[in-house]
């Protein structure tokens, strides 16, 4: 049973990550390739706070979201000056810089050796979570809150404005909306939630190293988003379900691990091609990336 619960916890983390990517990519039409960078920044900042201070989870979560959100300003600044493919490349550059810093700044991050022994989250500053059951309930509660808030964002006037920016930014500007501000807020919230997923991951597995936060991971998150669908809440959840559950289902086919890993990549690639060709808004999505 612990195995199933572990899968559900990882699924919850990925739901948060894919939902966070949906805010910038699916709603503001900004194809960012650095979601894993924010995930990693959140994980490392969270680890620092977890190891150095005995703070309640809500305080740590708030600090991690704030600092990770501030890092997003670097990317949103680029979005003002760069459009289309150039912006995508800039976000890729940000992702590579973050990975390189995490890998090489060994005094702080321990580089490739990673950071072991990360303590669990403390509820109310007292009770330290440990074990798969406690993390299961905590992650379920957290993902419930995140899904509720993201759904609210999608259907709220804020979401309406982001959707409008995706359709035609100039017209939205001419309607008196500061589109740069809206996109920056979307980036901030997106990065903050990715950072939150990072601190949950770090405390749950109690070990992090830079290889969990690579460009591949960013592509993985975006693939989940495109497969599930963009522009609403259901699509990203479905996408996260697909990418997290697929490798687990392949285990039951009885293939050797080496083949299953490659097969998984092939299936992801194939699914992406089929979805892009036949249903560009994703399986359960609302909008098409422009």
């Amino acid at each position: 049973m612990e195995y199933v619960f572990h899968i559900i916890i990882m699924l919850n983390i990925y739901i948060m990550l894919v939902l966070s990517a949906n805010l910038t990519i699916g709603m503001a039409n900004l194809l960012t390739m650095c979601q894993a960078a924010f995930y990693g920044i959140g994980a490392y900042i969270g680890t620092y706070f977890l190891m150095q201070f005995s703070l309640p989870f809500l305080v740590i979560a708030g600090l991690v979201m704030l600092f990770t959100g501030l890092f997003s300003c670097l990317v949103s600044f680029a979005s003002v000056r760069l459009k289309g493919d150039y912006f995508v490349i800039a976000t890729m550059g940000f992702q590579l810089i973050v990975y390189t810093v995490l890998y090489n700044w060994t005094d702080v991050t321990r580089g490739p050796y990673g950071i072991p022994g990360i303590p669990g989250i403390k509820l109310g500053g007292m009770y330290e979570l440990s074990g798969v059951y406690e993390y299961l309930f905590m992650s379920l509660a957290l993902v419930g809150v995140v899904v509720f808030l993201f759904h609210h964002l999608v259907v709220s006037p804020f979401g309406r404005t982001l959707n409008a920016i995706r359709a035609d930014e100039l017209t939205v500007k001419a309607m008196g909306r500061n589109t740069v501000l809206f996109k920056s807020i979307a980036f901030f919230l997106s990065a903050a939630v990715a950072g939150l997923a990072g601190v949950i991951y770090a405390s749950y597995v109690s070990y992090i190293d830079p290889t969990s936060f690579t460009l591949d991971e960013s592509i993985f998150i975006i693939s989940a988003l495109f497969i599930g669908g963009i522009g609403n809440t259901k699509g990203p959840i479905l996408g996260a379900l697909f990418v997290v559950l697929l490798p687990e289902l392949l285990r039951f086919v009885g293939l050797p691990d080496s083949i299953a890993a490659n097969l998984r990549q092939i299936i992801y690639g194939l699914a992406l091609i089929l979805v892009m060709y036949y249903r560009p808004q994703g399986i359960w999505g609302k909008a098409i990336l422009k």
Partner: protein
Amino acid sequence: MSFTNAQKETFDLLRGVNLDVEKGKITALVGGNGTGKTTLFNIISGFEKDYTGDVVFEGNNFNHIPAHRISLMGIGRLFQDGQLLSGLTLMENMKLASDDKTGEMPFSSLLWRKRSKAAEAVKEQQAKDILVRIFGEGNKYLNMLNQDASAFSYGEQRILSLARLLMGGDRLLLLDEPTSGVNPVYIDTIEQIIREMVVEGLTVLLIEHNMHFVRRVADICAYLDDGIIAKLGPTAEVLDDKNVRNSYLGL
């Protein structure tokens, strides 16, 4: 104003444009392709910043103010290819054009639910009132408020985009070729909407190539040629001017 192309050649586009737009009137800006009409609109509405000179609106200098702030100061714009925003319903399009931004910051509509709901309800009623005023009681658009923009034809999107401008509380509207690509059936409706705008106290400056339409609608006409306003006056006088007919209409 000038621009430099990829070959580093510099061209003067607008050189000494001086145009007064009379309050409460419809002024048409006509001229050949590439004479800078849309560029002039871009300057007025804040989308073009690289120019010298002054843009003055109601006594306030609008130089180099960002586009979104210019809109809030009372200048609305219909783009040349302006249609409804795709992926949004007709009602969402109308609401977004409102100058009331209540609830648009993240989670504000959750924290101040009542206030946000009330503001949305006001916008909904305003949108319905506009559609009734333009298309009459019981018109089909009232039953299509929750339809996606893509459900409407190009011509319908054009007239609804014009109607949307009435949501904004603007005082000057810049309309870039409102009849462009529109079926003749809708041209009368566009004329009706523009007249409705003036009745509501708005001032209209429009770019148009359809000279029959300009003659019918515009009180004043400005002919832009070679980077300057070459002729300005009552519409019939400008369009019947020998030089304008020669150089622009080719008659």
